[in-house]
């Protein structure tokens, strides 16, 4: 990089000592000890562990009906893809919780990639595009997906609320998508319907709704913080 800048930049112009003393006093007035957030690896392990436990618990409550309808190869492809995106979403959320953390992948690319890859995978796995009882079979799925996302979102909020200081809108959008992805994981364990259109509309729809909820919540919290 050619950065041979040959002129002076602004000199140091320190703040008033009285201002710094005032700030110090303000900080000292309420200074309880805080425990730093754990490392990214620990946060990732916690997130994925919680993701697995909650998705299996919710799927157990409604039944693991997908196991009976999927072949071993289909399960391997389907569940591996879900697991990979769960890791990517968890990592993306964690990276944005910590100010100044390196970003592995932009949320827009990750979100689009999740929808496209899962949609294409389902189109390849299930060649059935029949729309008979499309809505009747779809409503319970999207309801289960959204409820699962809501439950996981609320469960994870206690940890997550500690870290959306720098990019609240983007971070909470990703958090919503991650919670929505848990809905997809629950449906992957539960839903026995082998139909591409059903998956694309109702399963991915649950994730989309959760992402939209995250987007609106992020905007609301950011606007509220700015209004304070």
């Amino acid at each position: 990089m050619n950065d041979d800048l040959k002129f002076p930049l602004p000199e140091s112009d320190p703040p008033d000592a009285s201002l710094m003393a005032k700030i110090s006093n303000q900080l000292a007035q309420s200074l309880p000890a805080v425990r730093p957030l754990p490392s990214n690896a620990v946060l990732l392990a916690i997130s994925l562990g919680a993701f697995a436990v909650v998705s299996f618990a919710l799927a157990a409550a409604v039944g693991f009906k997908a196991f009976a309808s999927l072949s071993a190869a289909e399960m391997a492809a389907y569940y591996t893809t879900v697991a990979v995106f769960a890791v990517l979403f968890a990592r993306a959320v964690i990276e944005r919780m910590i100010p100044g953390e390196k970003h592995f992948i932009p949320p827009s690319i990750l979100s689009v990639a999740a929808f496209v890859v899962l949609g294409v995978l389902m189109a390849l796995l299930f060649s059935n595009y029949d729309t008979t009882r499309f809505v009747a079979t779809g409503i319970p799925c999207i309801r289960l997906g959204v409820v699962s996302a809501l439950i996981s979102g609320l469960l994870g909020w206690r940890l997550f609320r500690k870290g959306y200081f720098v990019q609240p809108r983007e971070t909470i959008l990703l958090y919503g998508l991650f919670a929505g992805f848990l809905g997809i994981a629950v449906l992957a364990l539960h839903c026995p319907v082998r139909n591409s259109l059903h998956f694309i509309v109702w399963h991915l729809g649950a994730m989309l709704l959760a992402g939209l909820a995250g987007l609106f919540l992020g905007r609301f919290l950011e606007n509220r913080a700015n209004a304070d």
Partner: protein
Amino acid sequence: MPGDENGPPNRPMRDGGVEMLMVAYQNSDPNAATALVTQLSPPIFQFFLAQSRSRAEAEDLLQDFWLRIHKARATFRPGEPLMPWLYAIARRVRVDHYRKTKGTREHEIISEQLPERAAPEPPRQASPKISDMLQSLPASQREVLLMLKVSGLSLDEVARATGVSVGSVKQKAHRAYESLRKRLGGGA
């Protein structure tokens, strides 16, 4: 300008001392809080001042910055670099302030054209020409230049603070240098 004219004049100590103070601050040590404010406020204030309309605005931003640091202090992990963490929050404070005052800024354009002022501000030490030129840069280029050349952050630290790649930081800095050189009439 004292020292190397291209060097970072505001970089706080790099030997991990500030990080240790941060850990003590997390452990509710009021002396560490005071030491951090004393050491870190000047470069952060400079960062705000170079992007503000007035010294009073930069002082408001500095206070807001420390309130955010206080709330977010649990997100600093010992062993991690402090500067990107600090500047990511400083940057957010500035962005939020800009959004908050965007409406009022438009109304103030008219009143700013009036010559009267409540009280004359103390003259800045910075060359007005350089300050004006910095103000003329796009915000993203200006903040990268300030972090690199005034605050003394490395390319990697700036990339982390701004949430972009090192390549993007290099590109913005290069464009800022080119723009400033052109304004100086082909390079000083």
